[in-house]
């Protein structure tokens, strides 16, 4: 897994399989690995059509369990050792539940791929920033600017801010003069970026109409 941006976490490190000595490290590991384990179980069940049951006791002795279809029936099946013939009703219930699970998997897949898209976009934006920083001194981090440059930048930004306010005012006035103000005006713009990102920001809900 290559690291594009420096992150505070340590990344993938090889560890030896012995009991972890530090308590909070142990707790964190438990939490993460338990989730990962259930994820693997979920995938195995979905991809290969198996029935699976997992029981895990936490360091605090809480009983976590995961089952497909449900852990209790897996346990019963295990304990009784009798293969239970699937009744018609059972099969129907199973089919129904499997269909539901399939829906959820599809939904998850969709969200994950959207997430991947946004992450890539974030990386591209970072890359652009990095490149333009080399050419334009004012885009450098504030801490890297000299006091003279910083002052110039500050004043330019203050000026820009006024311009933005003026422009906003202009639009506001114009909108009052027209019969009704379309909130969806942003759809008409030539924005290079994906519109859905605009729609998803919750702040827009409160804008005036």
């Amino acid at each position, binding site marked *: 897994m290559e690291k594009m*941006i420096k992150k505070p976490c340590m990344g993938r490190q090889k560890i030896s399989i012995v009991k972890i000595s530090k308590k909070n490290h142990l707790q964190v*590991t438990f939490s993460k690995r338990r989730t990962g384990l259930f994820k693997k179980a979920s995938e195995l069940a979905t991809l290969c059509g198996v029935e699976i049951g997992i029981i895990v006791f936490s360091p605090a002795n809480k009983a976590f369990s995961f*089952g*497909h279809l449900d852990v209790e029936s897996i346990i019963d099946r295990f304990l009784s050792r009798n293969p239970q013939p699937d009744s018609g009703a059972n099969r129907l219930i199973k089919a129904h539940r499997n269909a539901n699970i399939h829906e959820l998997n599809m939904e998850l897949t969709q969200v994950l791929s959207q997430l991947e898209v946004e992450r890539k976009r974030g990386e591209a934006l970072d890359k652009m*920033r990095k490149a333009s920083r080399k050419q334009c001194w004012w885009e450098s981090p*504030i801490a*890297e600017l000299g006091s003279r440059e910083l*002052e110039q930048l500050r004043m330019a*930004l203050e000026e820009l801010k006024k311009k*933005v306010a003026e422009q906003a005012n202009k639009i506001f006035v114009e909108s009052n003069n027209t019969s009704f103000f379309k909130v969806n005006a942003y759809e008409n713009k030539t924005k290079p970026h994906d519109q859905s990102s605009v729609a998803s920001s919750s702040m827009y809900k409160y804008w005036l109409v």
Partner: protein
Amino acid sequence: MTRRKVKLCYIADDSKRKVSLKKRKKGLLKKVSELSTLCGIDACAIVYSPFNNQPDVWPSHNGVQRIVSQYKRMPEMEKSKWKMDQDSFLRQRIMKSNDQLLKQRKDNREKEMTDLMFQTLVGRSLDPFDMMDLNDLGWTIEQYLNDIYKYQSDTNNMMAMVAGSSSSSAAALLAPPPPPAAQAPTPDHGVMRNVGESYQGAAAAAATGSSSTGRFDQMDTQQWIMNLMSPQASFGGDDMMLPIGDTCHTPLWPNNFLP
């Protein structure tokens, strides 16, 4: 090891499925074992493959029996609290991923706006933008300015401490103007940091990890734009109306700041 994205649905091809089953089952049992050893806890797994009545288990048949009886002894409520099936597990995953998605979108929006800020700073026209963009843009500019003010005031404080009286005049000249009134509260120092490590902003000051509430979360949209459109305290740069050229080179500024 190739990392290819696998589709989350039943593998139709029989032979591929068998291969996958074998590998994944092995991997899963290994993971249970690791979890148990690393954290010093009891765990067990039971896997029923289709067409096979004997399950694959970990740690062993007896081990599973022991843990299962331990599990059965627990009170119902305790068990059901942490009991998951595919349905609940997937829903949880979906929720978490959705949260990550929203956060990533907000971060990206902040990055976009910062880019836009710099572009409009060097001359890109404000005409095509609507109220929402202008609002976000104005907000972004304001946050950046706040970072600058903070950095300048921190630098002055340091200078004053180090150099004593000689820098007091310079400090007075560099003193930031009063910040704009009645804004929604923003997380201190944290604003620029939310936009990812590449935006260092006022990172020089107190680089403590802040809770990741993006500044857009705290913005009161109407409040902000109304404030901006009504007359407010003038900024230090009022007398210095500098044209924003559309070239990249440094404009010449009157040298009134430092003697």
